[in-house]
């Protein structure tokens, strides 16, 4: 297979134009750290963006950074961390879950659009992508958005690029919003709640004025992978943990921890975990530590379910009961991770039926290639919506040159 290491946007244009002439679809990769997500693609050449890796412009006072798409995410995170800034949507590191090397680029982060626990407060990748330069399936480099935080000039194409898994255009440069890191953080932990009660506790916390920036629930069974799950000592007491994060100026965090603790008194006495220990917990929640590839459930397929937050507890508890799987809740119940005992179809029919009934959608984020051949990885949409999505895709890439077949099963041919 040809791997084409592009050096600039002009190279990308040339590669796409040649691919059009040859009718040869391209797989778009940065570091390839999420290649196992999606349907099997019908591509036989790789467009590799990893050498397009410069920091174009970083202005901390403008809260903006412009990067080439192949910039290594780890380096970028260090760079902005040195200025005490962060990507507020808390991008997930998929490496531990997928069992792939701990790499990844900024372009991949946006293309996948997988946001972490702070999404409930700060929004997702789509809310932080201000502008992009990208090459469409027509082989033309176009500009989307701008380099300022407030912009309504023309269609907001950035929203489409975020989470499009490389199927609309090849991003060559992105401008992202950065935000100040909070001065301090604390996590309140409630112990021993069942999933539905935990969901109610999280709903109460998120409906309070205390600016909760993380609301997760780890049922007791999810601690079975032992201490490798990154949740530190939380699992040692053998009790479920409901986690509520507060961030900000130290005095404010202390005040809110006290008042939120009072509010949650009907659910038990909250213990408080501060700063570094709190950070470690949320990194494990973000990256779904209990289901890590090198843990006890490493061989199980993993679904990522998004649903109305207040219905998460009932949905997740039902799924765990019916499938014999494990669940973890984030986003106050709006995000459910579930690992299921392996079957040839990852129990897709059951998952989709229950998730549809709850008004949500489910993505099979981790599964072997064999399983992915049999299952719709991304949630099938109703006819009219699916057709509209396909027309949108067609408007960027009519010949299906880019990541052909990744999103829709059977569309690779």
């Amino acid at each position, binding site marked *: 297979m040809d791997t084409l290491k592009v050096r600039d946007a002009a190279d990308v244009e040339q590669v796409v*134009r040649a691919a059009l002439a040859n009718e040869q679809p391209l797989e778009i990769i940065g570091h390839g750290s999420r290649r196992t997500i999606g349907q099997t693609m019908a591509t036989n050449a790789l467009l590799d963006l990893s050498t397009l890796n410069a920091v174009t412009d970083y202005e901390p006072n403008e809260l903006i950074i412009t990067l080439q798409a192949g910039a290594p995410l780890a380096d970028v995170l260090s760079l902005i961390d040195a200025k005490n800034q962060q990507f507020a949507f808390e991008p997930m590191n998929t490496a531990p879950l997928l069992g792939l090397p701990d790499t990844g680029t900024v372009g991949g982060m946006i293309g996948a659009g997988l946001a972490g626990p702070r999404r409930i407060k700060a929004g997702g990748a789509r809310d932080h992508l201000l502008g992009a330069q990208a090459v469409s399936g027509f082989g033309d480099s176009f500009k989307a958005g701008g380099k300022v935080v407030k912009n309504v000039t023309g269609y907001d194409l950035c929203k489409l690029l975020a989470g499009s898994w490389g199927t609309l255009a090849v991003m060559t440069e992105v401008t992202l919003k950065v935000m100040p890191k909070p001065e301090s953080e604390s996590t309140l932990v409630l112990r021993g709640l069942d999933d539905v009660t935990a969901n109610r506790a999280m709903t109460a916390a998120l409906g309070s004025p205390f600016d909760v920036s993380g609301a997760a629930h780890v049922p007791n069974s999810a601690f079975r992978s032992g201490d490798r799950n990154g949740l530190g000592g939380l699992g040692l007491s053998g009790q479920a943990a409901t986690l509520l994060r507060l961030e900000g100026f130290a005095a404010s965090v202390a005040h809110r921890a006290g008042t939120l603790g009072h509010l949650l008194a009907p659910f038990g006495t909250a213990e408080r975990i501060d700063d570094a220990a709190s950070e470690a917990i949320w990194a494990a929640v973000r990256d779904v530590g209990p289901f890590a590839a090198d843990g006890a459930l490493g061989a199980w397929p993993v679904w990522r379910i*998004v649903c109305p937050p207040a219905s998460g507890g009932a949905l997740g508890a039902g799924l765990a009961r019916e499938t014999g799987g494990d669940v973890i809740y984030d986003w106050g119940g709006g995000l459910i991770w579930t690992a299921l005992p392996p079957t040839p179809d990852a129990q897709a029919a059951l998952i989709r039926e229950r998730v549809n009934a709850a008004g949500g959608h489910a993505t099979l984020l981790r599964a072997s290639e064999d399983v992915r051949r049999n299952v719709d990885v991304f949630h099938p949409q109703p006819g009219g919506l699916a057709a*509209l999505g396909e027309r949108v895709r067609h408007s960027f890439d009519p010949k299906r040159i880019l990541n052909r077949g990744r999103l829709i099963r059977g569309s690779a041919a």
Partner: protein
Amino acid sequence: MTIMMPAPDQAVLGRRAEIVAALRAIVPGEGVIDKPAEMLPYESDGLTAYRQPPMVVVLPDTTEQVSKVLKYCFEQGVKVVPRGSGTSLSGGSLPLADGVLLGLGKFKRIREIDFDNRVVVTEPGVTNLAISQAVAHAGFYYAPDPSSQIACSIGGNIAENSGGVHCLKYGMTTNNVLGCEIVLITGEVVRIGGKSPETSGYDLMGIITGSEGLLGVVTEVTVRILQKPETARALMVGFAQVEAAGECVARIIGAGIIPGGMEMMDKPAIHAAEAFVHAGYPLDVEALLIIELDGPSVEVDELIKRVEAIALGCGSTTCQISNSEAERNLFWAGRKAAFPAVGRISPDYLCMDGTIPRGALPRALARIRELSEKYGLGVANVFHAGDGNLHPLILYDANKPGEMDKAEAFGADILRCCVELGGVLTGEHGVGVEKRDLMPEMFSEIDLNQQQRLKCAFDAQGLLNPGKVFPVLHRCAELGRVHVHGGQLAFPDIPRF
């Protein structure tokens, strides 16, 4: 009027009676308006310099009626201009002589309030403020707060991706909308997203928000609501130089503080506002910042001290801190009344809406001063300083021959300057007709073609709100053509492994 709209289709105009009758069969009674006198209120929106009576006004009150109206127009090749409350400042709902004006004013019902999921499901004609009022008893509110929030509809907010004073901290409309029901020009009804925090598939909600009525007609909206902060206080800080005020804004942000709102006014705006509302603004300063901090009082009190110290370090000459809600509201009263206040000192004004990088503020102001002298027209500046969104108000008298053209040329030069400084043509008011012909200042033909291809995915005949946003309209067939470069059979000279 200097901006040309598409030439009316005489064949369609000739069939007006037939079209009106067909619409009456779909929307009975007073829902179809065709008498010129009764159509007068629909001739214009918030961009009052532009007026055009529509061919006919239709006011449906169900999704089914909207669907049937659009399907009829699609089949008959009739253009449609959607309209909410008609407060657009960029002419987004300016009618067409040969077009149906589709008003959503009868969609006035809030369908569901769901505190557990922290969402409100509402019809598009409900005003922005009414959503906040409907959930206020439980301490919630809807965060985006455009100045017109008492009148503007949530459907219009979706169309324009409206902002407001608080969007620095809480985001624009797009960051606060979860789903919608949208009717396509074919009459097809599509539901996108809902109460889940993310939609499945491509982020179509993200593209519909801010699409200025060119992609479809939204008939239901699901928005996120937030719990009100425990408290809010404001500082009012005066500076002898605009540059110092700009530096103060940068340093506050640089210190990791994101205020709920951070607004700046220049001397002419301060004087106009003070004369109008008597808010106690200092009259001997060149720039005034209003900085609002919200959250728990322990946090707000701490941040007030930090911001005060930063302001002093930047050479502030006056600083007042609100000690009561009445005082905080008084600080805001002048800023919120800035537009009508300027309306009292000038027969007419044009409100511009560019965004620049925050750091470029002094340069932008200097340039605006130069242009003011060049054109011989006064200007008062109010800014959403926190996010670099400028609202220069150009003062003119429409009764003086040529002065409106001059004001428009002045405004266009300001927006060109914004783009040169790394900014954009519009921060929150939309392109509409007002900035349509300036789009090439910011986007190449390739950029604009890609945007228009997206339009084709929703409306291949170009019947929805034509003449807005895009300076040149291409046919979808022409835009969709792929140019294959013949003979280029191998990948070119690119390193491979």
